[in-house]
């Protein structure tokens, strides 16, 4: 320090050595959120996530719409996983209003849910690929994703926002020849998935950037309350579909994918391996589904919930997704609380990024299977 600085301007002291970086909301490595990162040279000292850029007040809006009117806006937080975010809502409302769901509708729901899980995971994989600079891995999943979008479009009539699952079943029956078409495309997709292994997961560049970075131990994963693929990549065998089976998941044949490493590579690999299981579930459900029958229980117009509260959860693409609904004898819910997987996985970002290199930030951040719009609700 030789010359005094003019008033109003402060430079950081050299002995502190800390620089603060704002990553996002306009940044190719962040989503719709901001990370306030403090770096010492190339190493991250602390990270403070700042979500809430897409907070649209879904929970408040649900309080002045009735149970059926709530469907379209509740699927908007994750439009590419819209069946899975509506699934727990339908289960909870059915429990609240005492609705019996037809057997065929339960299978159709499972098929829609698994197709949507594949769509979500492929989109996430495409984004993960492009943020690591692997543009082939953007093109392949983004192209294969359109096959499943076509299937769901044939089922429901909409490209991404289906509003297909409703309390009491599904909105309409499957189109003609859907079973053969679905089976053909799922078989093709399984072949394509095996090619991803060679181009992405065996790629030495990916392994160098993700293996051994951002390690989340088993005890930390449980202590921080993470869920979904992050939890399973840390060696905890927890899947809502297995542990608390809903609809017909107990009749279907599948396994949960668990990896022990807990690093970014394991977290990026678990959703990929789960897509094989999703294909298995779809094929099994197509076989076991009753070939005819009703798919929707008719509701009374403007149904009223009793003086009751329910909580139901399902396994979404990002982990356990639950709805807590309180009703007070009115057609509108009194309170709706949405517990989403993304927000619960956000909490481990500060723990994972501490001590990492700044260049590993996108690899760690996107391996969390995080969708900011859902986390903000």
């Amino acid at each position: 320090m030789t010359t005094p600085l003019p008033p109003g301007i402060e430079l950081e002291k050299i002995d502190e050595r800390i620089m603060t970086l704002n990553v996002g909301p306009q940044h190719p490595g962040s989503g719709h959120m901001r990370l306030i990162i403090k770096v010492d040279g190339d190493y991250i000292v602390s990270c403070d996530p700042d979500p809430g850029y897409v907070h649209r007040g879904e929970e408040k809006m649900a309080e002045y719409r009735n149970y059926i009117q709530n469907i379209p806006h509740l699927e908007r937080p994750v439009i590419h996983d819209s069946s899975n975010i509506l699934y727990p809502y339908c289960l909870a409302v059915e429990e609240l209003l005492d609705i019996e769901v037809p057997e065929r509708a339960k299978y159709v729901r499972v098929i829609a849910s698994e197709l949507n899980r594949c769509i979500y995971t492929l989109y996430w994989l495409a984004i993960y690929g492009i943020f690591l600079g692997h543009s082939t891995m953007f093109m392949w999943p983004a192209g294969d994703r359109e096959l499943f979008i076509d299937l769901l479009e044939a089922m429901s009539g909409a490209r991404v926002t289906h509003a297909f699952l409703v309390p009491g079943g599904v909105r309409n029956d499957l189109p003609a020849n859907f079973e053969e078409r679905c089976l053909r495309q799922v078989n093709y997709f399984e072949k394509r998935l095996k090619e991803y292994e060679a181009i992405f997961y065996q790629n030495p560049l990916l392994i160098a950037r993700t293996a051994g970075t951002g390690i989340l131990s088993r005890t930390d994963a449980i202590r921080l309350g993470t869920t979904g693929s992050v939890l399973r990549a840390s060696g905890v065998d927890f899947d809502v579909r297995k542990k608390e089976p809903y609809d017909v998941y107990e009749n279907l044949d599948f396994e949960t994918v668990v990896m022990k490493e807990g690093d970014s590579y394991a977290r990026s690999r678990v959703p990929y391996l789960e897509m094989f299981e999703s294909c298995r579930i779809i094929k099994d459900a197509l076989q076991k589904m009753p070939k005819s029958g009703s798919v929707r229980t008719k509701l009374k117009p403007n149904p009223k919930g009793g003086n009751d509260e329910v909580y139901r959860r399902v396994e979404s693409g990002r982990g356990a997704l639950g709805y807590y609904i309180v009703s007070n004898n009115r057609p509108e819910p009194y309170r709706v609380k949405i517990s989403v997987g993304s927000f619960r996985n956000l909490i481990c970002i500060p723990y994972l990024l501490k001590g990492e290199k700044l260049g590993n930030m996108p690899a760690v951040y996107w391996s969390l299977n995080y969708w900011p719009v859902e986390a903000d609700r």
Partner: protein
Amino acid sequence: MLKELFSQDTAPHATNVLIGKLGEVLIRAVGKPLNLAVNWGRLWSLWPVHLETACCSVEFGAASSPRYDVERFGIIEAFGSLRQCDLIVVMGTITRKMAPRLRMVYDQMPDPKYVIAMGACAITGGLYFDSYNVLPGIDGVLPVDVYVPGCPPRPETLIQGCMLLQEKIKRMKAV
């Protein structure tokens, strides 16, 4: 008359008028082709800013996927620096927290810059018209060139919106 014009005290004024008239003639002769050339250059290399604001970004991503491939029409995939961008696609809902950031991003872009409002939320607030944290459309924040309706718009609709913007740029005054 002429003598009066070129007399000592009005000379600078007259020269200015003359230069002005010459310039007009020149622009009439060269301006139109120049305009066409400049607009042609702007038309086929629109760089969108990578600013995802809400869920419509899923369909924006799908528009760059192999099936839709928006790059065919000269819209380059959204990567790179803000300072090199000339198009901002507002992908959906703008909340009260995001609106100042959106304006900051727009102000940092160099001229000429264009705005596409994508989705019902960016146009009027859409499904969230009565939410406490959502702006009823971005008209109060940015000057919008093209509105792309839909909730969310299909990638084809977005591509059509981009082509409408290109039609608009073709007719804009560049010089």
